[in-house]
């Protein structure tokens, strides 16, 4: 047919050729943007006056967190549950950008290339336990901050609370400082002494005789003509006690020996300066500044100076230590309503997707020392039956404000492979305030059979 075609008509083939190029432009755009198009807030199939009218959200135990009834989006009937899960679920106005209603729209709708938005049933199961969230929310007791618990074997986030919170059903703008911000995912705090975990890992790997060293602490050490204060007079102590007592004098010495560049390199390789991807949600990343003198290097290694750490990345690091050095892939989505969608999800997350942060030898040493922290300082009696490994942090935030209280760690018991992070803003002593909150939440998690 081509050969017999009239020659003068070859020019006319330009018309179908142009049409095909135009169609190619469209199909390239379609391939790139189809999901964004389908999830558009103007899609009347899934949105009605700005409300997502399809997709029910349940917790890991099938407790309803948000569902659509007669075209209206509803939330859990218990107000405390609503407030405790608001940051995981999202709110009716879409103010919480990292909530499931905003961040997992596609999964909620069950969007896929084959059936589009029409997969019949659209249920999304989160990994969180709403009762554990309630416990954490109540344990925070009015403090601003965050509590998160993760299974360090599977990476499932079982508890994720951020305060102050809001009632997701309320269409009024909530009062308070950053109520729509999920502090676990999106905040960065001065870490204080929990940063000594990073400094210690660097020391274990960079200073060969660190375990044999002896440090002297008489309550303060003069560097560059100014005092770096310790919170106590610790006398002569070895590294495990320096860590357990959180001795600033010892860690100032270690930090200066390592140098600011090495400490920052470790912070980077341990994942503190990059954002964590949790089912597509990007967390905030921490940041560190190089120090212009030894005194600042000392404060950098102690977790003060200009150090900023995101709670999720801190949790990821202690999960890695608990898990033999490999950080599990954090998950917030535990399942989707249909077999097809669950299959697609399983295919996307197949294989070992953990990332090694620490060598197994170092993680063993860190586990032993964090275990010793609880035994020798925080008190096993304060965490009955938990087999806890932890590090506290009391981060000075300047002015006359009380310091931020941090507590991070994990349970070594194989039956309860849980890692946690607690931050209570201006909560005072780390082991005190945040430690108590951590104990309450972990006891509840174990009683609940997580």
């Amino acid at each position: 047919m081509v050969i017999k075609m009239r020659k003068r008509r070859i020019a006319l083939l330009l018309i179908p050729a142009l049409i095909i190029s135009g169609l190619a432009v469209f199909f390239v755009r379609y391939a790139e943007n189809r999901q964004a198009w389908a999830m558009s807030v103007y899609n009347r199939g899934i949105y009605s006056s700005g409300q997502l009218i399809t997709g029910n959200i349940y917790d890991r135990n099938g407790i309803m967190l948000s569902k659509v009834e007669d075209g209206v989006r509803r939330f859990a009937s218990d107000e405390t549950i609503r407030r405790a899960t608001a940051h995981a679920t999202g709110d009716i106005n879409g103010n919480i950008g990292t909530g499931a209603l905003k961040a997992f729209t596609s999964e909620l709708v069950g969007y896929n290339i084959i059936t589009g938005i029409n997969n019949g049933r659209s249920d999304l199961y989160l990994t969180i336990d709403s009762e554990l969230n309630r416990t954490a929310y109540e344990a925070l007791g009015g403090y601003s901050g965050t509590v998160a618990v993760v299974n360090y074997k599977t990476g499932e986030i079982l508890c994720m609370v951020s305060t102050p919170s809001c009632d997701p059903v309320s269409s009024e703008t909530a009062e308070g400082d950053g109520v729509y911000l999920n502090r676990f995912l999106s905040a960065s705090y001065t870490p204080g002494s929990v940063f000594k975990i990073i400094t210690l890992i660097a020391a274990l790997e960079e200073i060969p005789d660190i375990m044999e060293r002896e440090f002297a602490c008489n309550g303060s050490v003069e560097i560059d003509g100014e005092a770096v204060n310790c919170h106590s007079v610790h006398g002569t102590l070895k590294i495990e006690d320096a860590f357990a007592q959180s001795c600033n004098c010892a860690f100032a010495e270690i930090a200066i020996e390592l140098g600011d560049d090495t400490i920052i390199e470790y912070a980077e390789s341990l994942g503190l300066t990059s954002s964590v991807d949790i089912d597509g949600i990007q967390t905030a990343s921490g940041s560190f500044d190089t120090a212009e003198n030894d005194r600042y290097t000392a404060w950098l290694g102690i977790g003060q100076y200009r150090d900023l750490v995101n709670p999720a990345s801190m949790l990821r690091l202690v999960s890695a230590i608990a898990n033999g050095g490999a950080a599990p892939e954090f998950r917030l989505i535990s399942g989707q309503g249909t077999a097809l969608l669950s299959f697609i999800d399983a295919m996307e997350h197949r294989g070992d997707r953990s990332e090694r942060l620490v060598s197994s030898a170092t993680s063993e040493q860190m586990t032993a020392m964090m275990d010793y922290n609880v035994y020798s300082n925080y008190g096993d009696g304060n965490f009955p039956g938990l087999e806890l490994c932890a590090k506290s942090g009391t981060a000075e935030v300047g002015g006359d404000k009380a310091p931020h209280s941090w507590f991070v760690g994990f349970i070594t018991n194989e039956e309860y492979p849980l890692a946690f992070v607690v931050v209570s803003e201006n909560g005072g002593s780390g082991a005190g305030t945040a430690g108590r909150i951590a104990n309450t939440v972990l006891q509840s998690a174990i009683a609940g059979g997580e």
Partner: protein
Amino acid sequence: MKAVSEKAKTEEKKLYPEVVGIILSAIGVALLWTDWSNMIKQTMCALIGLAGFGILAPMMQARRIKPAIRVLAALLGVALIAANVVLGESEYGAQNWLTIAGWTFQPSELVKVCVVLLATGLTDKRSKFRFILFTAFSAVAVLAMAFINDFGSALVFFLAYLAAAVDNKRYYMAGLAAVSAGGAGALAVKLRPHIAARFLSCGKAWENVATTGYQQTRTMIAIASGGLVGAGLGNGWLRGVAAADTDMVFGIVCEELGLIVGVLMIILVLYLGVAVLMRPSSGSGAVAAAVILMAQMALNVLGSVDVVPFTGVTFPFVSRGGTSVLACWGLLAVIDGDKNA
């Protein structure tokens, strides 16, 4: 030369353009499932069109009636254009509707059939007068469409003219037409800033979701929502958007019947068009008709997804509209009937 074309004719596979027409008409009728009165109207027009195709296609091959058909087409065409310009009512910007005794129809659609009838026989050696007539008529049609703000139809008529001119070996005429159309277009844009705005907003639909990009963004959302297999007939929401069943019909098909059916519709039109262009026996009228069908399909689909400016041109056979369906069957009759011996 004659022997070659004879041989080509005997070896040539027969095209069945009516099959394309029937499939596309069926989709068009099916889409009106939720709208009974329009569905009946659309079905009637498709059946009348099919019957008209059965009558007109054989008539085209009767040598002696051809001149009469052309004269009739010219007279009818001029009358339709005049009626359109003088009496036309505007809907959504373009003044291309006419109401007579309660029946609304679009004269410009029927003018397309007149154009392709006038385009027949241009490859004949004695076609000089015919070509002048065709040129004059096309110029009037393009200008009239531009005058009533129906730029999509103006472009379709212009492309039909180019196709016939090239087919007639009058490349210089095609060039001249292209230059003058370009000049006229530039003048129109200068005189009517709102038209320029519409053309300039092409490709920026997502930046203007509530205004100039409203229809295009809704169409893209609907296409993505349907996936490959669609939500099922009548289960889409795009049909609820004003004029969606004509201008954004590709989006409705993709949303409800799936992208696969949408793509098949495009392939059907392109296949028919290219086959007509490549068929050695196709007359110049058939070539013009094929170009009109392809151009309409492309302007409809690509306009609704923001690749080219949104002009409100109908998708052949599928868009709701009796006149459009009748005209498309007329074009098919010319494709089937206009063959060089």
